[in-house]
């Protein structure tokens, strides 16, 4: 189930809201959230609920052992418990997400005939696996307390707002709030407003831009010229940002309605003036996860230069692969590794001296190109699109529009996207009096109405981040 679907908006969400706030008891409220979260996940993947619960069980049992060995001072056993738990969880991820990819490539490489059944990708497996890993590793590090109640750990793992597309919420972020949170009217109102903003990003902006990108990439290469391929790249740049950040907004808003305070996952990434800054603003929960659980344990930058370069390559290779079992994601990861190394080793001093606009243009340019690599899993299609972008091919504008007038939606959605990617809304603060608040409520209601009109009318509604 996705947040912008009718069954969520008109069935699960209101039922959960009513049930949750009618019950005064914290334990029962958590039970409502747990049951509804399992139902939410089962809506799209009934059988994979068991897999998610099994992974949670492994983490719960592993956590109990880590805690027990820790309290007995058995350091080696504690470490072994950690390694075993992590291996089981990672193996689960590898089997369900990467095994087909590995076998296909081994067969290709060695002309082999190794055959395994096609394994379906469970929704959100990368997100919940990383959440579970953060619990186990933080427990090992002594940064969180052991969770003895399996159901509360399960609630952390499968809490529906962040279950299938993040943000990757660390256990320590909501450890306290699972049992001791307070729901306030202010939080509920702010949560609803955040949810509506996210819904608008997804239903209006992302889906609108998607029409343009898909139109261009689904047509033969010679149908369009260079300019149209840049328009498509821009459209996809808008689509993925509003899609993913919209989902994060909805997740954060929903969490807040129920008294949880998740950390921010996006901070206007397209205003970045360097690639380094971009990754501080884009999918923050993922980049900080890799920083804290992979990069720093590998030694971070406090090692000799060659090792540091290797660390960067490992982290970004894994970041790429986290997004999908496909070579283009690995290439995309290494693309960013190369850019970051270039920035850190050569460009940072030069960039510091350039005007802000040039620095922004530099970062935005490489981000846009990066999304083409990310979007097109077929290498020949990717090479073709990049070739069209970087070698001049004139555009027959009438022919392009005549082939499908939906291309004209670019005129609407790309400028609107470019405006909405800027931090304008936070600056438009209404006065905190009755009229200001009422106007804000009315505007959010109108925006929600617009989203519902589009959702009711449009059959196009996939979430890109589902596949991760």
């Amino acid at each position, binding site marked *: 189930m996705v947040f912008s679907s009718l069954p969520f908006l*008109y069935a699960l969400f209101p039922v959960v809201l009513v049930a949750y706030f009618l019950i005064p008891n914290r334990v029962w409220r958590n039970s409502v959230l747990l049951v509804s979260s399992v139902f939410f996940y089962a809506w799209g993947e009934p059988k994979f609920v068991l897999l998610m619960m099994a992974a949670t069980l492994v983490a719960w049992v592993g956590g109990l052992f880590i805690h027990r060995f820790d309290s007995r001072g058995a350091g080696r056993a504690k470490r072994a418990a950690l390694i075993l738990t992590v291996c089981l969880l990672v193996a689960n991820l590898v089997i369900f997400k990467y095994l087909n990819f590995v076998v296909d490539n081994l067969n290709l490489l060695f002309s082999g005939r190794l055959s395994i059944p096609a394994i379906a990708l469970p929704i959100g497996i990368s997100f919940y696996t990383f959440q579970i890993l953060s619990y186990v590793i933080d427990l090992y590090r002594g940064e969180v307390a052991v969770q003895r109640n399996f159901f509360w750990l399960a609630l952390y793992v499968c809490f529906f707002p962040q279950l299938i597309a993040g943000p990757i919420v660390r256990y320590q972020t909501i450890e306290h709030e699972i049992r001791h949170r307070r729901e306030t*009217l*202010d939080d509920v109102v702010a949560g609803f407003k955040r949810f509506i903003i996210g819904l608008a990003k997804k239903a209006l902006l992302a889906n609108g831009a998607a029409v343009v990108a898909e139109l261009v990439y689904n047509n033969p290469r010679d149908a369009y010229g260079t300019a149209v391929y840049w328009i498509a790249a821009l459209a996809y740049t808008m689509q993925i940002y509003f899609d993913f950040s919209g989902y994060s907004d909805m997740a954060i808003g929903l969490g807040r309605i129920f008294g949880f305070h998740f950390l921010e996952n996006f901070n206007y990434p397209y205003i970045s003036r360097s690639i380094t800054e971009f990754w501080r603003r884009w999918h923050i929960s993922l980049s900080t996860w890799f920083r804290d659980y992979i990069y720093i344990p590998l030694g971070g930058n406090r090692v000799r230069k060659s090792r540091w370069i290797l660390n960067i390559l490992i982290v970004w290779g894994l970041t790429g692969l986290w997004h999908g079992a496909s070579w283009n994601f690995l290439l995309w990861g290494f693309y960013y590794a190369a850019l970051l190394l270039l920035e850190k080793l050569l460009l940072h001093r030069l960039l510091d001296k350039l005007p802000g606009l040039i620095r922004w243009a530099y970062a935005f340019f490489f981000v846009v190109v990066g999304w083409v690599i990310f979007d097109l899993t077929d290498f020949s299609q990717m090479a073709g699109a990049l070739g069209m972008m970087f070698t001049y091919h004139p555009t027959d504008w*009438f022919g392009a529009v005549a082939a499908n*007038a939906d291309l004209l939606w670019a005129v609407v959605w790309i400028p609107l996207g470019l405006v909405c990617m800027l931090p304008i809304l936070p600056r438009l603060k209404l006065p905190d009096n009755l009229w200001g608040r009422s106007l804000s409520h009315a505007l959010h209601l109108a925006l929600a109405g617009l989203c*519902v*009109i589009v959702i009711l*009318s449009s059959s196009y509604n996939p979430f890109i981040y589902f596949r991760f």
Partner: protein
Amino acid sequence: MVKKRLADVLFLSVILLLLLAGLVRTLFFPKELNTYENRYAQKAPALSVSGFLDGSYQSDLDAALADQVPLSQYAKKLYNLGTSALMESMVLPIAQSHPNRYINIFGLRLFNGTHLTYYTNILSDRVPGLDEKAENYNQVFAQHPDTEFYVYFIEKDTDIDFETGEKVGIYEYLAGQLNLPEERIARYRIDSFDQFSQWFYRTDHHWNAQGSYEGYLQVLELLGVAEQPLTHGDLVTVSQHFSGSKASSAPSLYEPFSVYPYDFPDMDIVINGAPAADYGNQDAWLSGQGTGAISYSAFYGGDMGEIIFDTGTQGRGSLLVIGESFDNAILKLLASHFDRLYSIDLRYYEAYMGTAFSLSDYLEQHQPDRVLLIGNADYFASQDFLLED
């Protein structure tokens, strides 16, 4: 502070009420019809383990909510109107600066910036269907040697590429397959966009007043009717806002709906077995009494299983018309020249009449002198219109 809290509570109450209203309506007070999309409304499915596991429950509930959520039809209407108006405002200037060119839009093609057209047929795609129909017809012709069969093929935008002027050739192919004398086969010929734009609506797939009158004249000639055709009055515009079938997802596109007034002779009409005051609502619309949205079927009459027109005359013979919606506009015109005219639409006959259509039985029962098979390429290539003898 209290007032601000009240505003917050009001805000949350409105949202919750709207969300709950959708669920309550869907579960407890579902409506039967989706009038905007002209079909039965989907209702909430019964929850079952097997339905949930195979995903059918989820998709059915999704469809039910899309139909049952309060104001959902207005929402869809508003969305279609807004998006099509926006798209139209962007496309029309481009289209008008490129006359005689197609632009793919709304799942159709806008030609010349004025007419929504279907994609041109590809003959090879249609050949299997045409062959099957030709075989079916030839069997029928052979089994009823005493009945005069006539074929009238109506060409439209699918039969010609307006950019190149190239014809698809479906009529020629079909005519070559049928075991009928040449003089019993004719077509409503469209050889250019100018001709098409004169005889067809801009937003609907049917022929317009001028086109249908032309078709009527040609059918009379095909049938060898010696009587003078009915004459029409001056063109009358009964509505300025006609948005035809091709504009179903682009309601911002509309055109005037103009018609010819006719002085029809008196006739008794039986529709689907029941006597009817009239077929269609031509008089009502012409006198300004038409209700609802104007459409081809609202004016001329809709698709029916069987319609019988009886002029009460003797000696002018009878005609059986087996066709589709194109003939709706000329049935009363044609009926004026016969004692009786029987009209059958094979798509609806069984549903309305309660029994499958059998040509042999029908011919035996009504003894029509002539049988006219009339329709466009879809009619002559589709299995929906196979004749069961």
